[in-house]
């Protein structure tokens, strides 16, 4: 597990990390899966369990950066997707957390969860796992 922590501090190219709860089996996540999961278009992990998505508020600088750099869409597009799904009964909102500490805590405590965090936050490999993207 040590290499994950090391890899994290060395990974300057990607400003932020995708984190999942320890029970999530995926070691690496396809970019299309990442967008579909955060857009709440798909709702289950490949093993069939529900995906629990955590995000920071729309105006949070990390949210804006993560959505633009990693998901390669604009925050307003995600917001439009969520609103459209919730108010037609066809989908749900992700859970919005107030800050990175809460993000870290919620992802570590919720089964099947996914979120993101700035590389400046020191992570314990016993609590959350960083996943690579391909």
């Amino acid at each position, binding site marked *: 597990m040590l290499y994950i922590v090391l890899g994290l501090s060395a990974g300057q190219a990607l400003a932020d990390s995708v984190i999942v709860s320890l029970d999530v089996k995926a070691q690496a996540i*396809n970019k*299309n*899966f990442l*967008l*579909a999961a955060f857009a709440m*278009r*798909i*709702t*289950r992990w*490949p093993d*069939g*369990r*529900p995906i*629990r998505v955590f995000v920071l*508020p*729309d*105006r949070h600088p990390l949210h804006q950066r993560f959505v633009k750099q990693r*998901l*390669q*869409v*604009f*925050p*307003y*597009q995600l917001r*439009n*997707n969520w*609103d*459209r799904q*919730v*108010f*037609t*009964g*066809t989908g*749900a*909102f992700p*859970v919005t957390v107030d800050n990175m500490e809460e993000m870290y805590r919620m992802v570590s405590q*919720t089964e099947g969860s996914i979120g993101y965090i700035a590389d400046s936050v020191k992570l314990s490999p016993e609590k959350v796992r960083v996943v690579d993207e391909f």
Partner: protein
Amino acid sequence: MNFKHLTTLLFMGISTYSAGIYASDSENHNLSVNGFLTQGFFYTDQNNLYGESSDNGSFDFHEIAVNSAYRFTPKLRGALQIMSRQAGNVDNGELKLDYALLDYRFNDSVEKAVGVRAGRLKIPFGFYNETRDVAFTRPSIMLPQSLYFDQARDLELSIDGVILYSSLEVPGGWLDLDLLYGSPQTDTNVEYAYFAFDAPGKLNDSDGVMGRAIYSVDGGRIRVGLTGSEYRLGYKPGNDPTLWNELNEGDLKLNVLALSGQYNAENWSLTGEYMLHELDWRELGGVFTLNPVTTIESYYLQLQYRFNYSWDLLLRYDDLKLDKDDPLGKQNSALLNNARPAHNFYAKDLTLGVGWRPAPKWLFRAELHNVEGTGWLAEQDNPDASVLRKYWNAFSLQATYRF
């Protein structure tokens, strides 16, 4: 299969279940409760829009909704929304079941998500129809009325039936598909919209199919949509066949084809939609023998500009021709001995709007409409077509709170 009963059962089941869960476990990830309140104000220099707007303005417009969704199992969800909408004489504010559905998703991968929804469903037409009453999903206070006309809203709002849906990974992006079959809601407003009067009999026994495909490229930077539908509204005459406005027993047939396109950049979005809507009154006869089949042609082009998260601007041109072969309405007006003026058969609306989100839960909008023609004005708010004015302006304000 009677879809109406299915919807009632679903409503009772889901609401009882959700209320129980909500009371016992408010931290539950499987349950959600959301809603919104919208209040509008409309002022017009001529003609009426959502109430008696041409006198001192009208506050006769609100939209209030509460919805709840529950995930029973990873594959099965239930959701419902109750809504009250007041809109001049078109909607009286009574509580309505907006949707109540069960959603079973067989397959849920990025390559292929497939599922079925049954119950009362929002109608997947174009880009905006499903959320037309939800202020913060609209680009403006009023949606472009040429495509999303408020008059026939009950027909366009929800349908009791089933939808087969899927989201497929395709080269360049993904494809969202919806295929719908069901019984549309047909009330008096629908008669106003398609007959221009409240006919003595009733529209009942209706059904329709609709299909929509939306291709999203590059994470939704480009979206292209195609919607097609065929509706059949059965008309049953009243008791007095001698009335001037009575019609034969038969079906009013509605066919719709709409093309949608959108480009999304960081600070701006360009959206356009084009619709052909064919009305076939041949079986109903009566006053419609004069013009038994007509095609409505509509389009709009809209530019949204986002200065930052809080402020946006909207510019739109919206064009409606109730008879595409008679763009100035002169022939249609003459057929009715000028009972309806020519400008009652088209409308050209130039809209300028501004939106402000001071906080995530609040949205305020202001909007100016400069309109030539009265084609989409509601008869219910303007009962005497002969006093309508061809050129008119509207100013509107809207406040929305969501939770």
